[in-house]
């Protein structure tokens, strides 16, 4: 278990925490963008061990959480159609739409299947030419290359019964949108290591410079996060604002150029609505013109969608770090993983679900 143990060593964790305590001379607010990092922070209780004043703000980086309600409602309308095999990653199945979720649709007879890669969906389409196979393509830059490859493969195979409902989102526009908010409290970012493994970090350099904000590319193990936080605090204390790479074992500056090429070939940048946040310009991907025949939104004419969020849910404030889950009047009572009102309570990487799983009940926003 060497590769894991190295990044979960309790003695090293204590050492990094001591370093942090010695380094931080005043309060700092750092946002981890990625839901996977939120999950590790909360599951390991790292945020509770940080020196007084160093506070983590949980960012919008859970792809399940930010997928717009309209997309979910559209997905469920498509999945409910006879003759459709609807495929998705597992954690999308429990996300509530306006009226229902995929698991409930499946229980009522819809053919909804969990896949582990989009290529599984392509394979199903090959095996079942009599059925329309739809894949729900959501996620950040991390999942986009595999989805692009699936489209290219389906195209090579000449499949006419495969399509994607695309709702990809991009990290840098979300970071700049947060920083443009006059109420933004974020002083430094931990950038998601796996996103940067694909995209590199050149996109982050102008953000760090323009907004004078340190950005540390960070992995997902407990020691990765502690080291990333330490590097961010170190920059803040020294008045530096650079892009630094904690995740050197997986990330290089130019990223994975082959993956980027595939994404550029199949998708194009578009405006995208983020659940709980709203529309952000140039913050998403959609299928490029030459691959529109695989666009499920065009193939299935779905009308009459009336997406309605629960008015009590403060998902937007949670996803932008403005509020903590425990600030929500519905948290843990009317909103639980069993009956989520909003997406952050659904995915294991959602901030509300992570807090709930860890039994968090007492925190309130320091503001």
């Amino acid at each position, binding site marked *: 278990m060497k590769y894991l143990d190295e990044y979960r060593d309790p003695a090293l964790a204590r050492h990094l925490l001591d370093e942090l305590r010695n380094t931080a001379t005043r309060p700092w607010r750092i946002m981890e963008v990625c839901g996977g990092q939120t999950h590790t922070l909360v599951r*390991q209780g790292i945020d509770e061990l940080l020196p007084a004043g160093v506070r983590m703000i949980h960012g919008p980086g859970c792809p399940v959480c930010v997928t717009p309600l309209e997309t979910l409602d559209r997905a469920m309308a498509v999945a409910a159609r006879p003759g459709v095999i609807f495929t998705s990653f597992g*954690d*999308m199945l429990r996300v509530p739409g306006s009226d229902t979720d995929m698991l409930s649709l499946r229980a009522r007879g819809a053919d909804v299947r969990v896949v582990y890669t989009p290529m599984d969906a392509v394979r199903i389409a090959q095996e079942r030419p009599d059925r329309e196979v739809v894949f729900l393509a959501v996620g950040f830059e991390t999942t986009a290359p595999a989805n692009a490859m699936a489209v290219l493969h389906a195209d090579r195979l000449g499949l006419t019964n495969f399509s994607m409902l695309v709702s990809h989102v991009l990290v840098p526009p979300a970071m700049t949108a947060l920083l443009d908010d006059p109420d933004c409290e974020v002083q430094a970012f931990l950038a998601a290591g796996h996103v940067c493994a694909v995209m590199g970090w050149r996109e982050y350099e102008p953000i760090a410079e323009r907004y004078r904000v340190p950005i540390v590319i960070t992995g997902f193990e407990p020691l990765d996060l502690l080291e990333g936080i330490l590097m961010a605090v170190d920059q803040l204390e020294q008045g530096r604002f650079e892009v630094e790479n904690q995740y050197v074992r997986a990330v290089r500056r130019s990223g994975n150029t082959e993956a980027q090429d595939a994404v550029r070939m199949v998708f194009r940048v578009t405006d995208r609505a983020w659940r709980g946040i709203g529309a952000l310009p140039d913050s998403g991907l959609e299928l490029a013109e030459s691959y529109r025949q695989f666009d499920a939104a065009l193939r299935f004419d779905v009308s009459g969608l009336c997406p309605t969020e629960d008015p009590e849910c403060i998902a937007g404030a949670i996803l932008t770090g403005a509020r903590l889950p425990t600030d929500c009047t519905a948290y843990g009572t009317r909103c639980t993983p069993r009956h989520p009102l909003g997406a952050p309570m659904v995915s294991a990487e959602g901030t509300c679900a992570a807090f709930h799983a860890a039994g968090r009940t007492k925190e309130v926003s320091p503001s």
Partner: protein
Amino acid sequence: MTLACPTPFHEDEVVLIGHGAGGRLTAELLDTVVLPALGDQSGPLEDAALLPGHPDLVVSTDSFVVSPLFFPGADIGSLAVHGTINDLAMRGAWPLALSVALIVEEGLPLAELRSVIQSLGKAAHAADVPVITGDTKVVGRGAVDKIFINTTGIGRRRGALRLSAALARPGDAVLLSGPIGLHGTTVLSTREGLGFESDIASDSQPLHRLVRALAPLGEHVHTLRDPTRGGLAAALNEIARDSSVAVEIDESCVPVPEAVASACDLLGLDPLIVANEGCMVAFVAPSAADEALATMRSLPEGRNAVRIGEVLTDGPRGRVTLRTLVGARRVVDMPLGEQLPRIC
């Protein structure tokens, strides 16, 4: 008035796959649908029940619907034997006999059925438990997934073991007989072709001999449970709830095999929630903990036994906490339903 019910559709009115996953949804289904219809059920729901009027006789029943039928380390036949033997053993009972009921899908190749039954017979023979009665039904194609097996077991309690999920006490040591997560990740990997199956095998095995070895410790052993569906997290939460105690375990002490950790990391699953079929947790009085641990380690099925935590002398009743690797504490919650692999 029409015959159509005007009540708006409510999602809770259909059974979800998660209702069978051994977590919070399963408990909800039992509490709201099953138990009210069967009459008052007082006290904890145990792995096996004492037969009314026969204080030493214990009965347990279980159905096995695993897919695929064969996977590294076990198959549905041996699993059906081990599962029921273990449920009896968790009440301190030595298995006397089993019944086996088969529901077979039309079209199942006889070779597959033969393999399953031969494995079942071999497992029963190896455990020294006779199969004394049974039943076979064949249903139309699609009505079941190849074959479902129900096994019912009768056991007799011997010695001074008087075990219950409600008997854990403050100060108890929490012992675990072996590594966690093997069965669940093996079945998932084999079913979905995830590529881990060459590195892992189900831990399915009978635990009655391990329990028999603990019998001399008598009343010092308070609670045994095999963490099957819902994994270690569900088992500990059930015990904490039924005994009204606070349980704390140490993450660094919980043995998670490398292949299980890798699979869980990649899929976003929590090893604490993944199913097991060949290990058990034991809540033992502190004075007997070392002896219990040594006893467990003296048998092959308990050779990797470890102490993973204790029952706190004060703490929130019914709550399970974990001391994390980096030294913080967090709550280990009862899992909701089935685990869903995450997006990235």
